[in-house]
């Protein structure tokens, strides 16, 4: 058992690249590429407002059921990966949801991504919106 204390980790050859050994001790994966680069939990009903977030500068209420998540430190390109869940309902109870996939990404850009909450007939301002992004920071 050894304890290393440091405030910052940086790659030697490439500052943004550190290999970490996988669980099976046979392969490595890149530390920086495996980290979530941005996440947000927000409400879209009444005034669109984040409950908590990481690397999000602001939210923009585009129109009913459509929101832009503005990224604080930009991504390197628009080919990143992400997930988005919404209950697609203004209801705040756990029973208020649309029983189908009810949200999608509008678009990816380096400095933002857009959400579209859909309840099978129209876009809807939604109580629960959860999203995260994986990819390369600029």
């Amino acid at each position, binding site marked *: *058992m*050894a304890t*290393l*204390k*440091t*405030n*910052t*980790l*940086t*790659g*030697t*050859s*490439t500052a943004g*690249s*550190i*290999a*970490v*050994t*996988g*669980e*099976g*001790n*046979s*392969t*490595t*994966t*890149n*530390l920086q*590429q*495996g*980290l*979530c680069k941005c996440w947000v939990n927000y409400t879209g009903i009444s005034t669109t407002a984040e409950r908590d977030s990481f690397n999000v500068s602001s939210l923009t209420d585009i129109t009913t059921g459509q929101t832009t998540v503005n990224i604080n430190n930009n991504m390197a*390109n628009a*080919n*990143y*990966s*992400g*997930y*988005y869940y919404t209950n697609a309902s203004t209801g705040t109870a756990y029973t208020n949801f649309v029983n*189908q*996939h*009810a949200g*999608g*990404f*509008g*678009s*990816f850009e380096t400095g933002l991504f857009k959400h579209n909450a*859909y309840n*099978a007939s129209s876009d809807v301002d939604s109580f629960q919106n959860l999203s*995260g992004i*994986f*990819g*390369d920071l600029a």
Partner: protein
Amino acid sequence: MSTLRTNALEGVDDKSTINITLNEGNTITENLIHVIGKHWCHFTGTGTIAIQDSINASSLTDAGTGDYEVLFTNNMSNAVYACVAGTQGDGVRVFALATSKIDRLIGIANDGSVEDGSFYTTQIDGDLA
């Protein structure tokens, strides 16, 4: 302020065990490798499907309309890992998992039928083989 510069990190007792303090209260540690995502991918779902960017994705298989396989470079240790997906299409389902690939990723239209969406995204958390 201290900065550690290194190209690789390995645990001392076990190569894949490095505990890291995770919480702002400095009371919770977790194995670093367990909290690192093991795969992500962004690929186009129409026409000739293609990986746009990824980590630990080697190739795609077009298994039919709205039916995709995402193959890994380094396999997972089992087929019970966590997987989420996103799309610019109407909906997406992760239908089957395997150690070497996301076996069935299904694009869903608003009417419940299967469709090719413009792009799909995938992420995995779990144990590497």
